[in-house]
Each structure stands twice: as C-alpha cells, then as structure tokens.
C-alpha cells in the first residue's frame, strides 16, 4: 500500500479534508461528519464481509452497543434519570469498542457452525433483540423518546457540540467543523489500521477463509478463529462508529438502530466495492448524504405509491441490484478501470477484487 501513500489522490483527499469545513456549506460539512462516523463502521464491515467473507446484517446492533456503552459510561446519572457512570470520554470510547468487540466474538461463537451467508441470516436476530432491549429498558435508552448524548470534551473545549467558537489565526470553527476534524483524524487512523490489517498475515487468513473455509483449514488456518477475530475487529470498529454517530446526533433513539441501518451499511459497502476500504468510506459518504440532500432539496413529499418519500431506499435497493449485476467491484472497480485507462501508477492490472463468494 506504499504506492497508495504516495499517490496524488491521497494528497488531494488530505487537502480536501483540511479545507472542507472552511469552504463547504454547513449542510455538506454535516454530511461529512456523519459520513466519517459511518465510514468507520463501513470499514469494519468491509473487513468482515469483503475480506473475511462473512455476511453480517447485525452491524446496527454493534453500532448500538458502541453508542449506548459510550452513553452509559460517560453520562452523569441522577435519580430518576437514565444510567450513567461519568467517566472521561476517552475511556468511554475505549469501553464502547471493547464491549462491542466482546459481543461480536460471542455471537460468532454462538453461531459457530454458521458462516458466510448463513451467519448473515442469524445476525438479523441481534438487531431485533437489541432494539427490543433498548425499548424495554428505559434506564439504558431513555425509552422510545431517547436520551441526550453528553458532548465530547477535550480539555475544556466541547468538541462536538456547543456554541463556542474555536479560533485559530483568525479562523473560527464551530462545533460541526470541529467534529469534522476530529472524526476525520479518527477515520484516517482506522483506515491506516485497516490497510495494514489487510496486508498482514491476519488479512490473508481472512481472505483464505472467505475463499473457502475447507481449503483454508488444510493450510493450517482455523476458520472459526479467523471468523471470531474478524467479528471482534469489525464489531470494535462498529462500536467506535456508533459512539461517534451518537456524538454527531447529540441525541439517540432506539428506533435508529434497526435493520434499516444494517442494510444502509451494506449498501455503503456494495456501492464502494466490497473489498475496498476507500470505497467503503466513499459509499458511506454517499449513503449518508443522499437523504440529507433529498431533504435540502425538499424532494421528500407526499405519500402513496408515486411519492418521493421512500425514494432513497428504493434507490439504494435498486442500486445494490444493478451494481452487483453490472459492476460488482463497485466504485473502486470503476476507479481502477479509469486509472487504467489513464495509464497512471494505480492502474496496473490487478487481480479482480474477489467477492466474498464460495
């Protein structure tokens, strides 16, 4: 991946990340914030599905575990109010990742005879059980009407919310813009970790299991262990993503963490290209942005068969169908082809990104 680091594309991306909040209109910066947070979860799913070949429709559950663990750890509790322990935010984030990771590993062990597609089927139960628990335990979730998320404080600066303006050399940064920078940094760290994981022995073990667990076992890889690790890692990232999403929303409700969220994550992955980490992030930006753009353009109106209300969902659904059918490598595949046409460094013929098929 050293080639990637030196590519001009990376330079452009970093520049965009740097100046984005300053030049873009606020609603686009907002899309960026949510997109970065979701992108972390999408990277987790990319490692699990694209590289280890395990379909997971339970990602929303791990996102929720991360969000609510963070909430419970960091909030201050009071009599009659939801649970809270009042620990520092960094501990909260670490806790969110750890707890989500444990759940992921545990689920994989429960479903140890399932794998590939069938574990995807089973993972649906996680989302539904999770939402049920959230709705049934108001101490945890604040009930159906939700609970607020305490802002992330670094020092005495409230990063993700609040009306303070952070000033550097004449530039003022409000909470959305500050969140952009913070989340972008976290996202870059996660992406760096993911790229290294994919290139490592563990990454190759993931791919071996994806391409055939029986064959993998004959080369000394224990597919169950690989699956557990894959679930643990992707769930940890999902937990991180969930906590950041909670911070971005500043308020969470149980309804959000449903099957639709899992399917959106899957859509992000399919759009981006199942094995591509960068693609997952781009997919996340698109899938997060589309409903917001729709709302800005006031397209969602009316009801009934021909209204545009459910159009984003219909578009994702059909998008997934068309992409899988015509361009299974997603946007990453498209980008690779384009780069090849332009004869640039990244355009070397590469083994076609193997989909999680076996």
């Amino acid at each position, binding site marked *: 991946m050293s080639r990637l680091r030196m590519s001009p594309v990376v330079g452009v991306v970093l520049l965009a990340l740097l100046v984005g909040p300053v030049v873009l209109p606020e609603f686009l910066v907002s899309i960026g914030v949510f997109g970065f947070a979701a992108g972390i979860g999408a990277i987790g799913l990319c490692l699990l599905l694209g590289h280890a070949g395990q379909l997971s429709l339970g990602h929303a559950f791990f996102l929720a575990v991360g969000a609510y663990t963070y909430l419970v750890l960091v909030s201050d509790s009071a009599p009659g109010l939801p649970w809270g322990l009042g620990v520092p935010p960094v501990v909260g984030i670490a806790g969110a990742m750890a707890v989500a990771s444990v759940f992921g590993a545990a689920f994989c062990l*429960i479903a140890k*005879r399932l794998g590939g597609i069938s574990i995807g089927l089973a993972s*649906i139960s996680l989302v539904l059980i999770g939402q049920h628990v959230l*709705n049934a335990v108001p101490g945890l979730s604040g009930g159906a009407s939700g609970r607020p998320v305490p802002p992330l404080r670094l020092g005495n600066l409230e990063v993700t919310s609040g009306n303070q303006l952070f000033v550097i050399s004449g530039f003022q940064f409000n909470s959305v813009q500050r969140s952009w920078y913070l989340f972008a940094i976290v996202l870059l760290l996660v992406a760096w970790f993911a790229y290294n994981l994919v290139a490592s022995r563990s990454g190759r073990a993931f791919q071996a299991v994806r391409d055939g667990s029986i064959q993998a076992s004959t080369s000394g890889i224990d597919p169950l262990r690989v699956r557990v690790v894959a679930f643990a890692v992707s769930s940890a990232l999902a937990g991180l993503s969930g906590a950041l999403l909670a911070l971005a929303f500043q308020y969470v409700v149980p309804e959000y963490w449903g099957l639709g969220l899992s399917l959106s994550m899957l859509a992000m992955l399919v759009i981006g290209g199942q094995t591509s980490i960068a693609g997952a992030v781009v997919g996340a930006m698109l899938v997060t942005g589309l409903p917001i753009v729709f709302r800005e353009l006031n397209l969602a109106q009316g009801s009934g068969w021909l209204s545009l209300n459910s159009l984003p969902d219909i578009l994702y659904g059909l998008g997934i169908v068309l992409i899988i059918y015509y361009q299974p490598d997603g946007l990453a595949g498209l980008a690779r082809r384009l780069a090849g046409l332009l004869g640039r460094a990244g355009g070397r013929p590469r083994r076609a990104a193997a989909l999680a098929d076996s």
Partner: protein
Amino acid sequence: MTVREFSYMLLNGVSMGAMLGIVAMALVIIYRGSHVVNFAFPSLTMLAAFAVIVTADRLQVPFIVAVLIGVVIMAVGFGLLERVLIRRLVLRRAVMSASILTLGLDIAIRAELNQGIGSRHLTLDGPWGTRVLSVGDGSLPVSRVIGLVVAVVLMIGFRLWLKRSSFGIVMRAVADDQVAANEIGVRVSRIWTVSWVLAGALTVPAAVFLVAFPASGLDTATYWVALTAIPVMIIGGLQSLEGAVVAGVAVGVCMSVLGAYQDQLAFLGRGFDSLSPYVLMLLVLLVKPGGLISGAEVNRV
C-alpha cells in the same frame, strides 16, 4: 386458562407456525437448489398477499381464482427473477453476491410497498369470512383451521412429490451434489429455475393465511411477521424441509403461548412474543449448532 382459551392458543400457534413453516420451506427449496438465500422473501410475501387482494378486488373474481392468479403471478415472477438476475451469478458460483442482490431487491420492494400501503390495513376477504367454529364452549376461527389443513396438504404433497416423482428425484439429486448431477446429464440450471418457481408458488398460500382474519390484513407490520421465517429456517437446520415445518410449528406455538401470557411476562418487555423466535434461534444454536435437523449444511470447519 380455560379449555377454550387453551385450544385457541394451541391452534393459533400451530396454524400460524405452519404458515411460517411454508415460507421457510420456500426459502429452503431455493437454498438447497442453488445455495442462494432469497432475502427478498419478506417483501415478496407482502407482494403475494397484495396481488391476491388486488386481484380479488379489482377483477371481482371468486376468491379461489384470485389465489390461483396470485400463484401464477408469483411463480412467474420468481422464475423471471432467477432467470434474469440470479442465474448469471450462480453460474459463476457467486452465491454471496446473488444473496446480497436479493437484499437490494428487498429494500426496494419493501420501500415501495410501505409507501403505497402507508398506514392502511388491506383486508383479505376469504370465503370463510369471520366465521368461527364452535368447539365445546369455545370458538376457533375457520380461517385458521383451513390454513392448517392447507399447510398440511402442501407439506405432505410436496414431500411425496419429491420422493416419488422423477422430477422430484432429480431436484434432490441436484440438492445433494450438483457436480455429480451435472455429470449424469441433469440440466442443473433448469432445476434452479424450478426451485424458484416452486418457492414463488408456495409463498402465496402462506401469505394469504398470514394476513387473513383474524389477523388485521396486509399492512407494514406483515413484513416482520414474514421475516420470522428466518429463525424458523435456521432452527430447522437450513437445508431440511421437515425441519422447516417442525421449527415453524414450534415457533408458532412459542409465540402463541408467550402472547397469551403477556401480562404475566411483562418484565420481558412489550412484544416479547414477537421477539421470541429470534431468542429461540440463539438458544437452539447454543444447544444444537446445526439446527434441530442438521443435515448437509453442518459446517464443522
């Protein structure tokens, strides 16, 4: 609990469970044939109910004709799905991609159906109306009784067909070992299409009885009712037709019992009866990792 309440609870559970078993059977047929999971089945089940309701309504035909038209529509629809979208992927052994494709379809179909149905409840006017049978001093909805009979007939009929007919034997051969079947001259791709067509046909009676009285008709909640076929399929052992049926009945009875004792079980949260199939699934996986009737699917690696 009185005898009447008990018998209603049991019959309701067995009847609804048998319907879920049929939906799960349709899933198993497709999965055995081509190792693809048809994730679009919940929205397609809604679509099947919708087709029957609209046909009966607009064309003013007798109910049984509307059902038959529905069967034809769904069978043809499923067959086209397989032929146009799925086949190319299965030929490349891209079963994960094919399954994800059906997920995309489900998202789109469900979004459009939810949008169109909105907050309405589209009732299905079956010939049984709202009649109830008097049993002792109790009453059982006729629709549930007929539903159970239909389910039993379908299950037994399908089983016999698989075992006895030459085509059924060919289907089982493909399910067992595609490569070997191919080598003795079986047109495997034709079997795939037939699996999908059969699944489509089976979806219709299941859909009809899932939305019929005393259920409140086709509404956006029907999706979640149909989705319960997934834990049924897993509990039953993913590749087993009998397992799907047994699991369906077990799940149905479980939901029915928990529903009847809701008040005493309020500490488990409202709506725990609807959640129970998924909890049951996790419990079964703990105890019997391959499902109740684990056959070829057992993945010991």
